[in-house]
């Protein structure tokens, strides 16, 4: 099959074949792509076309193209609104709070898993800690509400057993973010270890043998061999997380939100949902959503650039 070294094995088309002929040869592969291509064009690129209503006064009657342009009016209204800084602060603080607590924990847990031999105990702990990943947001919110119920919640009972007066976690705005973050840790720390365990499997055993010869303790070896091995994975995940600092999702926040904790629980995404779908201010909320996406994209590019400069690891 191969005519010269430049042709990769498996590349059936010889380099002398024209582009058109190589495309024609595998025409069925384009057929394979069609459903996915249509899906992404319609449901991902379609809404991107719809973003223009952020710069228009959209009315359903006139449609996306027919509505009049208004420039940056909606953005100005949002930036000048009294809730702009509150929303930004809530979104950023919730995001960084979650990152500060939720990001290191799977790393530590994965390093701990890696230190014990494969056996019943390890398997049990893994199976149990992975399980909450499969609990739906609705059930998760239901559990949080039930456990923290002021009259009968088990967590409230436990706190009171120590003689401490339990705060009203769900209606006190000061507690909303902690409840959100801690429950997130409970649900996703175990599952988060998998990606690090995969990376840890690649540690060269010879490094450990050499370190043992030199008298390095277990702890030292974890710190100086295992941890450095997974640094690239950590970097990639950190970049992805940083690129999503304004991306606090509405799914969970929306379920835990109530009128009493609103001042700390209202984030950009829930605001977009409320003003857009509940109050039908389509153009305005699209503008707010666009602001959110643009900041996220800028963050991602910026953090990726920093990572590229300071380490060898980056997304692209």
């Amino acid at each position: 099959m191969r005519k010269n070294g430049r042709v990769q094995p498996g590349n059936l088309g010889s380099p002398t074949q024209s582009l058109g002929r190589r495309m024609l040869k595998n025409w069925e592969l384009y057929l394979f792509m069609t459903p996915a291509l249509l899906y992404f064009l319609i449901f991902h690129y379609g809404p991107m076309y719809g973003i223009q209503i952020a710069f228009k006064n959209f009315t359903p009657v006139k449609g996306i193209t027919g509505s009049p342009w208004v420039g940056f009016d909606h953005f100005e209204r949002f930036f000048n609104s009294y809730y702009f800084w509150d929303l930004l602060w809530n979104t950023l603080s919730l995001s960084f709070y979650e990152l500060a607590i939720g990001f290191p924990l799977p790393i530590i847990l994965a390093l701990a898993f890696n230190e014990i031999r494969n056996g019943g105990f390890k398997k049990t702990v893994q199976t149990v800690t992975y399980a909450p990943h499969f609990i739906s947001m609705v059930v998760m919110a239901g559990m949080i509400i039930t456990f923290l119920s002021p009259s009968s919640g088990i967590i409230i009972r436990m706190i009171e057993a120590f003689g401490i007066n339990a705060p009203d976690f769900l209606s006190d705005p000061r507690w909303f973010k902690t409840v959100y973050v801690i429950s997130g840790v409970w649900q996703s720390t175990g599952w988060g270890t998998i990606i690090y365990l995969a990376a840890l499997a690649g540690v060269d055993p010879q490094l450990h043998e050499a370190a043992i010869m030199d008298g390095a303790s277990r702890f030292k070896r974890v710190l100086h061999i295992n941890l450095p091995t997974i640094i690239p994975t950590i970097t990639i995940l950190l970049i992805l997380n940083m690129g999503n600092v304004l991306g606090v999702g509405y799914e969970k926040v929306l379920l835990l939100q109530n009128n009493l904790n609103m001042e700390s629980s209202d984030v950009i995404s829930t605001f977009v949902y409320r003003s857009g779908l509940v109050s039908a201010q389509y153009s305005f909320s699209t503008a707010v959503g666009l602001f959110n996406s643009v900041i996220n994209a800028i963050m991602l590019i910026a953090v990726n650039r920093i990572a590229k400069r300071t380490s060898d690891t980056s997304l692209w």
Partner: protein
Amino acid sequence: MTTIRESRSDKLFLIINYVYLLLALVVVLYPLVYIISASISNPKLVSSGEMWLFPKGLTLDGYKLVFDNPKIWIGYRNTIFYTVIGTLLNLAVTLPAAYALSRSDFVGRHFFMGMFLVTMFFSGGLIPTYLLVKNLGLINSVGALILPVAASVWNIIVARTFFQSTIPKELQEAAHVDGCTNIRLFLKIVLPLSSPIIAVMALFYGVGHWNSYFPSLIYLNDDMKYPLQMVLRQILVLQEMSAETTGAAISGDIAQAMANKAEIAALVRYAVIIVSTLPVIAVYPFLQRYFVQGVMIGSVKG
């Protein structure tokens, strides 16, 4: 690793390590056990805190109320329907595309992949997507729940990586020499060799459909079409405890036995959590390695 006498500091480190893992186990396991116990315990003992680990005052009334509730049955039926149809669509979109992208002789694969990847980092957002679904006339239909999530870039990458690493190039070459078309090659040779990735994909997508509530919240306006998660939202989060949500049986014998409506509500809540989460949690330990495999395949390339 070589077996070398552990020093004292190493032993201490190992002990701390075990204690840490044990702590993680207890912290994650306790709420799960508590819910199971609470769902079959006397609600009075649960709310007073007397029941804190093992069931006390056994009762199955919570489950009776849940199973007597027509809303939950309808929700269950809808969820199964949406999950099956949605997952089949996901597979039909993801697998052929992932296979095409895995072929190095597929002209334009970098362009297509790039086009898909862009959507991971930039999206039109909630409102333009909603308006699109509305304009397509999908409001209040199954289409609104399954079409906007017909594929995920992440899963396409995972499946593509699988095809690249497990389908030998020689196989494809030999098939082509024998005059086998790409369609036959995919259906008769590639798919039968790919049952692990089909399982992983079906599981990832299936769990997603089973647990999703937000699309139903914004796109459905008919109670009869609500999936289980929307019924759960009414019971668990909004805590609507009308006769309708808790079931007609409240007016029957059980209600007579339990004077306190709040207690019934609490009991129903625990039971409903178990009933809705059980299918996923029960099959998960058996399929765990597939899920883990999926994440690992993804992380190699990711």
